[in-house]
């Protein structure tokens, strides 16, 4: 038995292809949830109402301080005991998104706080509405500098997707494991998965970097 056998590579390919599609879908979908929800949470935390902002802060702290796997298990296994049935896909993507929304909200918050106080004052002096101030003045200055940090979370989430296997979502690593178990041969499939993760991460980082450069140039920051 040789160390590396190309025939297994071709045989494993369809499995891994299906798995890769699931992995990418899961990453992109949950990242969208994380960014949108993270921004909303960050905005709520800026609320002048102290109770609202404190509650949000505590909630973020809670989510960040417990493991993602536990949160996914809780939603998927504990929920049904109380009659809340959530499909694996929804539970997995949703929880991955919510978990990272907590992290993303911190990033957004840092970006928002970095905008100079004078910008807010100029908006008041020009009588801009609150909504308009956020949308056209504050966020366009707050977001471009934090794109690299958000991008890091994107790559991080991508590498976290194997957690979804724990609730029987057939993402790439799970497919590799099934293939390996069927054929008593793991080397090729596992290595291929690793290679895919590596390539995808590098490509994603490059994309994030060019988006960041483009945004900063578009908004004349730095």
């Amino acid at each position, binding site marked *: 038995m040789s160390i590396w056998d190309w025939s297994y590579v071709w045989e494993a390919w369809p499995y891994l292809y299906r798995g890769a599609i699931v992995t990418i879908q899961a990453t992109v979908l949950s990242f969208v949830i994380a960014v949108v929800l993270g921004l909303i949470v960050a905005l709520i935390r800026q609320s002048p109402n102290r109770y609202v902002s404190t509650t949000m802060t505590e909630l973020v702290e809670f989510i960040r301080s417990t493991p993602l796997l536990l949160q996914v298990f809780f939603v998927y296994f504990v929920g049904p005991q109380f009659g809340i049935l959530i499909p694996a896909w929804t539970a997995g993507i949703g929880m991955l998104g919510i978990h990272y929304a907590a992290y993303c909200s911190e990033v957004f918050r840092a970006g928002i706080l970095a905008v*100079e106080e*004078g*910008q807010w*004052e*100029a908006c*008041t*002096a*020009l*009588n*801009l*509405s609150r909504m*308009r101030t956020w949308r*056209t*003045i504050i966020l*366009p*200055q707050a977001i471009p500098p934090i794109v690299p940090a958000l991008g890091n979370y994107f790559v991080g989430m991508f590498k976290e997707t194997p957690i979804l296997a724990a609730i029987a979502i057939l993402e790439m690593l799970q497919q590799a494991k099934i293939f390996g178990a069927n054929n008593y041969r793991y080397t090729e499939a596992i290595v291929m998965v690793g290679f895919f993760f590596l390539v995808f991460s590098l490509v994603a980082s490059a994309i994030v970097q060019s988006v960041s450069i483009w945004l900063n140039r578009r*908004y*004349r*920051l730095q």
Partner: protein
Amino acid sequence: MNEPMLRFENAAKGDEGLTVLDKPDTACNDKVMNEPMVRFENVTKRYGSLTVLDELNLDIARNEKVCIIGPSGSGKTTVLRMLMTLEQIQGGVIWVDGEPLTHMQENGQMVPANDRHLRRVRSKIGMVFQHFNLFPHMTALQNCMEAPVSVLGLPKKEAEARASELLDMVGLGDKRNHFPIQLSGGQKQRVAIARALAMRPKVMLFDEVTSALDPELIGEVLNVIRKLGAEHDLTMLMVTHQMGFAKEFSDRVCFFYGGKIVEQGPPDQLLGNPQNERTRQFLSAVLEAR
């Protein structure tokens, strides 16, 4: 000679004309003209236990140009910031153009103003800041168009025409598509003035607008302000360290010390022959630094 006749015709048409008859124009104008444009009535500002302004009373007439001078920490910038509603006040009432700014009347009682009231009355005031506070992600033109489009609801074309005209007035017509980062300090401040004017305010506030500028750029900004004062009906309130400019430009100079107006009067008198010891000390210290 035909005027009364016209009025009578209007009166026949409806209520609007009648009110004109009830209050002849001259009397109406007198009332408006005599009313101060800005009135600080017993205004107190505190940060915690520190009292920054202590029961300030100050009236500023229509089209009056008032310069505020004083040592740092005397509360002079706070006066402008309160008027711009950037600071909340702990006592008293600020009036603008005959109506309360910080308060509103509800069932005959004065209650703290809500957001809507603030936005409405605040629209009469424009402010220029020490550090410009231009929007860095917008061109000079866009900086001047943003508020007219989104607040006044001006069509883009009209806002652009207004912004261009103002940028021409401050001598930056050729820089309209430049971003703030591509402008010098003096140019930035002139864009900031144009941006504030684009909202057609009745009162303009200038908060140490030349303090962050290199000495050779101060003149171009002061020239624009001079021109504004000469050509437009604007009430101006200005915190400044430029004593020469205050002397030549203003109708009145107020000297602040320790949260109070210690002395005020026409610039020649206050700057030339101050009565108060504090004023004298301050002025001689300022002159010495020159």
